[in-house]
């Protein structure tokens, strides 16, 4: 659907250095949304008719509250579009298309492991919420630059969920020093022995997701990955956002991040060609 979402909250998230923002918009998108889906948002108030920047920006749903008719977007100021978006004031109306794409799927039982790096964490929170509501066990592996980043990007909210959290930072300022995949591997190893039923959902830098997928394939754990690509239409009409996958027959095919994704089965992704 297309809504004129009214800005309810728009604030800095954590340290200003991290350039993160939290944007809460009022509108009926929440009613039908699920974790892993995204919106395509126009970065200027719709009452300003400017065609520069021209395109909407894809941002994941980081919070879905159907009771309050609100969605939460968490984003990093990256370039021109997000810089302009960051100037939206409470009461401004932003044109938002969504919910778009297909979200993550939840296993019927067992454990859901969330593995993420950087701001790839954002779409995972509503996923954790749904999984917990459904009685699943949830575990988080999260790697970031440093302590300031992890704290800015919402660590305390995650701690509030009461799930096991495995942190890592590049500089060792919080959690283990190094990559998130080190701890993931350790725990996959343990569980391979104990034989617990696990599914992994991952979102973050491409290299990380590729490594996570490789590990999961090694340990025969199903993994869903959330991909990014530049978008035109955001509904599957322009073929701008394709990723290369292999189908069951092993043939290379294209699927659209906006419509068929952004979540795909890890084993299908042809990493060096996609994104």
């Amino acid at each position: 659907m297309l809504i004129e979402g009214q800005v309810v909250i728009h604030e800095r998230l954590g340290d200003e250095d991290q350039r993160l923002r939290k944007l809460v918009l009022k509108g009926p998108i929440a009613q039908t949304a699920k974790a892993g889906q995204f919106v395509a948002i126009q970065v200027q108030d719709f009452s300003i008719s400017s065609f520069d920047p021209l395109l909407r920006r894809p941002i994941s749903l980081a919070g879905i509250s159907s009771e309050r008719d609100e969605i939460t977007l968490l984003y990093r100021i990256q370039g021109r579009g997000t810089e302009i978006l960051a100037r939206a004031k409470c009461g401004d109306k932003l044109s938002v298309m969504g919910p778009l794409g297909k979200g993550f799927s939840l296993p019927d039982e067992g454990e859901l492991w969330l593995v993420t790096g950087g701001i790839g964490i954002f779409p995972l929170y509503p996923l954790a919420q749904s999984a917990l509501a459904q009685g699943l066990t949830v575990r988080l592996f999260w790697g970031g630059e440093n302590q300031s980043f992890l704290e800015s990007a919402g660590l305390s909210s995650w701690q509030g969920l009461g799930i096991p959290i495995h942190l890592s930072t590049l500089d060792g300022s919080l959690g283990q020093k190094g990559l998130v995949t080190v701890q993931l591997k350790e725990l996959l190893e343990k569980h391979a022995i104990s034989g617990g039923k696990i599914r992994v959902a991952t979102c973050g830098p491409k290299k990380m997701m590729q490594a996570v997928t490789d590990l999961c394939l090694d340990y025969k754990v199903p993994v869903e990955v959330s991909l990014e690509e530049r978008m035109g239409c955001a509904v599957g009409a322009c073929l701008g956002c394709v990723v290369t996958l292999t189908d069951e027959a092993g043939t290379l095919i294209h699927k659209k991040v906006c419509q068929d994704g952004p979540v795909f089965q890890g084993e299908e992704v042809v990493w060096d060609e996609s994104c």
Partner: protein
Amino acid sequence: MSPVDFTTQLAGITLRNPLLTCSGTYGFGEEYTAYCPLESLGGITLKGITPLPRLGNPVPRLAETPAGLLNAVGLENPGLDEFVKSYLPKVRMLPTAAIANISGFSLEDYVQLARALQKDSGLAALEVNISCPNVKHGGMHFGTDPQSAQEVIAAVKAETDLPVIAKLSPNVTDIVGMARAVQLGGADALSLINTLLGMQIDIHRQRPVLANTFGGLSGPAIKPVAVRMVWQVFQAVDLPIIGMGGITTWQDAVEFLLAGATVVSIGTGNFVNPQAPLEILKGINDYCAQRGFASVRDLVGLAHN
């Protein structure tokens, strides 16, 4: 005040209204239905097809420019057979006119596509894309050389009983010459314009942004060039024109009608505002009503008087 008459004749087909969507920006008709009911459109132009399936170019395929969009999709499409088998049955059921867009790398390609697509396919017309700038071999050739353009159109025309629309490239010195050539080839209508060839460089990576280096520039940025070409061709060539290139608002659409377009088509504008076609129809309606035009047809070419 009596309602404004929107029905439009184009190359022997009757359209509910003079509003189409552009090839390559509206998929095969199913993607935008949640935002814009197809029955509100005069018709849609389908994504370009080629004889064989194509995966198109690698990503990135898109780059945003000031008020514009570069695309290098590279004609990704399921190919003729799969189109006929899996898409055409659905396309036939669409509640609006569907125009197929065909592309080729040789005269034979066009002939093969035209032969397979006749009136009984349920399509309303064939738009012949002789202008896609993204494909490295061929493509550009037909669209920039009048002689070849005429031959392609004549060949297509000989093979199909559907009305034939020639879609012209703006990347030429003389658009009127191209229009005259395809008229000689037997075109029933013209689509103006396809994208301008452009590129963008990522100054951080010091490489072209698009994997394909070059891409086609569309969107509001190119509107002045498109309006100019519609204007020039309207003056010189007696064929109905489907005007496109940057149409995003109803004012843009009216501008093209006044310049001489019988029909207007929305491409990149859909990405900006998926309800653009609806807003444009309403805007045209109000514009006509307020100024006492009984029919949208009365606007066509009016700025030439």
